[in-house]
């Protein structure tokens, strides 16, 4: 032992070393804590079962008016004759937003408990410290998205005519892009907070407005105000949701899908760059 202790640390690490260790540290807090893990699976079941099924939009359309077929009305409004399918996909974007935001909170604790300083005193790269947070939030959201799809199918989600298992890969790719963007910017905010209340307030301020000013639960074309439509039309969640609908429940419009991916891709790259630069600056002050 004494012989060993007197040797210098001979291991020189590469640029990305520690990325998986730090990411896994975050993920372990989730999958190794049975209560939190089970709740993260139960949550979509409850939401989908209660909210999803409670909003029985189809029943609002009278069936006794001649020439009005509720299914056609629904199809024209939502692009699918089944509102539940429409909104369960919205739920995926919803979960991406919430999971990335809340899992970013751990940065505040890392700072308060001194873990962040400890990590900064090791040769692990500053970028890796930030990436590990982004990656763990992203992986967690992608897992949740998978659970939602399974639950939605169990509750009666109707797939589009061209659905194949390959489309699922597209869904996860979309989730990856939007989560990387969202969590990067959110971590840039939380890393500056010394108390958990500040990012919580920010989250509570923006998450629901961002959610409802999108096509997650209601189509943009039917929104009453132009300003609301304008917001919804630039909201990346609208594009995320549309892409997932194109892939899962619509008669896929490839042009539209390409546009969705381009929009969210640019959003992710721009926002992640800003977020990572801001975090980087903070960590190298």
């Amino acid at each position: 032992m004494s012989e060993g202790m007197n040797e210098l640390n001979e291991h020189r690490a590469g640029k990305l070393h520690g990325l998986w260790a730090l990411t896994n540290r975050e993920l372990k807090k989730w999958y190794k804590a049975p209560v939190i893990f089970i709740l993260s699976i139960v949550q979509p079941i409850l939401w989908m079962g209660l909210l999803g099924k409670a909003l029985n939009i189809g029943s609002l359309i009278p069936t006794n008016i001649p020439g009005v077929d509720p299914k056609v009305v629904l199809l024209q409004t939502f692009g699918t004759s089944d509102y539940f399918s429409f909104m369960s996909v919205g739920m995926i974007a919803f979960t991406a937003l919430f999971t990335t935001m809340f899992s970013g909170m751990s940065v505040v604790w890392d700072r308060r408990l001194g873990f962040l300083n400890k990590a900064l005193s090791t040769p692990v790269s500053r970028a890796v410290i930030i990436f590990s947070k982004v990656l763990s939030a992203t992986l967690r959201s992608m897992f949740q998205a998978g659970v939602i799809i399974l639950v939605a199918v169990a509750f009666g989600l109707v797939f589009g005519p061209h659905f194949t298992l390959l489309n699922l890969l597209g869904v996860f790719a979309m989730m990856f892009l939007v989560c990387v963007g969202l969590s990067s910017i959110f971590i840039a905010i939380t890393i500056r907070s010394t108390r958990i209340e500040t990012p919580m307030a920010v989250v509570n301020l923006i998450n629901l407005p961002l959610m409802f000013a999108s096509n997650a639960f209601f189509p943009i074309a039917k929104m009453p105000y132009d300003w609301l439509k304008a917001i919804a039309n630039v909201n990346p969640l609208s594009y995320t949701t549309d892409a997932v609908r194109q892939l899962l429940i619509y008669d896929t419009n490839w042009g539209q899908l390409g546009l969705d991916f381009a929009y969210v891709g640019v959003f992710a790259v721009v926002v992640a760059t800003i977020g990572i630069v801001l975090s980087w600056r903070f960590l190298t002050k």
Partner: protein
Amino acid sequence: MSEEVIKTEGLTKVFNHHLTAVDHVNFSVKHGEIFGFLGPNGAGKTTTINMLITILKPTEGKASVLGFDIAKQDNDVRNVIGVVPQEYTADEDLTGLENILLCADMYGIPRGAAKERAADLLRLVELTEFKDKRVQTFSGGMRRRLELACGLINRPKLLFLDEPTLGLDVQTRTATWNYIRTLKKEYGMTLFMTTHYLEEADTLCDRVAIIDHGKIIVVGTPEDLKHSLGGDVITLAIKEDADVSELIKKVDNVKDVKKEDGSYRIKAEIGEVTAPSIIETLRKKGYTVTKLSLTEPTLNEVYLEFTGRSLRDAEESREAFAAQRMTMRRARQ
């Protein structure tokens, strides 16, 4: 490698353009010594340590750690130093072993080597039987030892300890001191520590620097600093009603004698040797010593002498205060 493990020249940190936390600090730490940074909360101890461990950039001045420039070669510095922070940074949801392996991963140590080192370190800090228990269940002393093990995973030549016994009870504190002494003695490690416990600096450190308001006030061995105050104080009384001041003054090493209400207050160097010679001198002349006490100056008096006041506790940031409170609370678990 040079004898000087740490060397700073005019090291300065200014926060937000006006708050000078560390003000042109110069000192050096020699190979193989335990160097203590002593000062009240908010004196600039942690800011200095944070610059040396490369998590803060100096505003001015420079410093080298094990021959590497802390600003230009920061990653080289990180590779060769170990850090034991003031806080308990181990993840409560992970086990002791998992925490050590996480630290190993941050240094890029391959898993095989990391496991061997972790087993050695767990033995060193006597946590082997608890390695698979979650840190949540650890006591304050166990957490402190785990932090120590994590700080040693990269086999550092120089270990930084920030308030290593904050919040620990007396017994655990003594045990922690023993681990620190072992590192110095058996592994020839150089240790840089901060503390605001004077007796800790006194028993543990080879040299201490007293820092206040961001400036180093004095550097020296605890012995030298205490002697600089003018030596020990011997108080004695004799049975006879006579003035023996002149007689006492003639004894070797006696520097000053004052008669106060029937007793004598004597300032002397090496009190434990001088006191018996005084008794012997007085006895030869037929006087009988009835009372005698010997007080060696403590670092507390040194501290008072140089800073003009006792260790204060106020004036620190809310965040630092909260972190310290949290550490102390968890130490008591």
